[in-house]
């Protein structure tokens, strides 16, 4: 649970705008962004270029959460998928605006701005990306 406001704040750019980075040596794209490229190592130092990902991708696999963590109890059952982004990276995210029986592996999805969680009714609200099917 990110009840840690400073940590969330540091990650705003990646959570709101899917800002990742790209190795200037081999062109591999990373999300979340990495300090250096694990393939090119020292070769990539100082060559990691910030890029904004398109938020478009495809469902590789998914699962339905029936017993969620406390903050997500009201949303069960809800799907969580591994999505392969257009630029290459794979990420895990919630799928919204899709009935569970209509979910499919290979389905094209795009990111949407949603509330991810909140620290109760008095704490901070954390926003970020979820994914929905592209018509």
């Amino acid at each position, binding site marked *: 649970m990110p009840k840690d406001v400073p940590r969330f704040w540091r990650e705003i750019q990646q959570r*709101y*705008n899917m800002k990742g980075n790209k190795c200037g040596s081999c062109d591999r794209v990373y999300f979340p962004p990495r300090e250096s490229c694990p393939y090119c190592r020292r070769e990539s130092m100082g060559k990691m270029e910030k890029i904004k990902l398109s938020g478009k991708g495809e469902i590789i696999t998914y699962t339905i959460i029936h017993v969620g963590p406390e903050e997500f109890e009201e*949303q069960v059952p809800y799907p969580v998928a591994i999505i392969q982004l257009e630029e290459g990276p794979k990420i895990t995210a919630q799928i*919204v*605006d899709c*009935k569970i029986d209509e979910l499919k592996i290979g389905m094209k999805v795009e990111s949407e*701005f*949603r*509330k991810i969680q909140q620290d109760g009714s008095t704490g901070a609200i954390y*926003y970020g990306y979820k994914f929905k099917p592209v018509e």
Partner: protein
Amino acid sequence: MTDIGIVSYGGSIPRLRIKAEELADVWGKDGTRIAKGLGIAEKSVPSIDQDTATISVEAARNALKRCHINPQDIGSIYIGSESHPYAVKPTGTIVGEAIGATPDLMVADYEFACKAGTAGVQNCFSNVKAGLIKYGLAIGADTAQAAPGDALEFSAAAGGAAFIIGNEKVIAAINHTYSYATDTPDFWRRAEQKYPRHGGRFTGEPAYFKHVTNASKNLMEKAKTTPKDYDYAVFHQPNAKFPLKEAKILGFTKEQIKPGLKVSYIGNTYSGASLVGLAGVLDIAKPGDRILMTSYGSGAGSDSFDITVTDEISKYERDKAPLIDDMINDKEYISYGVYAKYTDLLYWE
């Protein structure tokens, strides 16, 4: 004279819907009669993870998809709503960050019942006219709350629209704008209260009709126009009855009103209502079309606009984002139980 006006626009409407019959059944009322009376068959409902900030971000992103402006050139963001997620902490900075418009930015959240969004449009217009900014972003959005069983439950809905105002590649020029305001306690929500209170019958004549009529009349006087000069008219739409009656008072026809009347399908989106209507009209507008739009905010006031669609709209990439009618048609019905859970009705003090 250079045109100042709408450079781009976009809407956002949650896809969940609840029917008037479903609401009426719970409270032992006649759903068909209520739906007919209000002219609202169903309303949009925010999902558990949607609020005014998420609706505003999606509307702004849709507006940006349709044009080629650099978000860094947006110099002011004003967001009008009655349901800002925080009482203290702006929605505008969340939107600014999420569209890449920070940090050289004037930001403020506006609040004037259902007309705070159009107040934002006026302020962006003024900033552009004064040469202070290149582009301004004004948004009207709400996730309206109604107490369980209150008459408002049949109309209080969720949605919004975003407008980018500038003076380059203007698709719809704002020729004139005029506002009318008096102290009228027709509807309010006290600080720290969850649900609003309203003055019943008092919300009609001295409130909505007085302000919308005077704002529209005085605007037309300023613009030297009559209802016949307009192709479309959009009025604040708390239900379908009020704007239709208003049209009659001012001398507009049903044909001028119908294209911008979206309340029947999604309910009253409060700060979003008149702006979603305007977005719906821009979805079908052609060069030369003239539009009159008048908002209404309880408490009370109206902002009226005289707008002319330009030739630029023929080149405008409208299809890069969904139209208002696309969003209206993309829907999923829910039960009252799910509605209660998602809109936090089960919350106990």
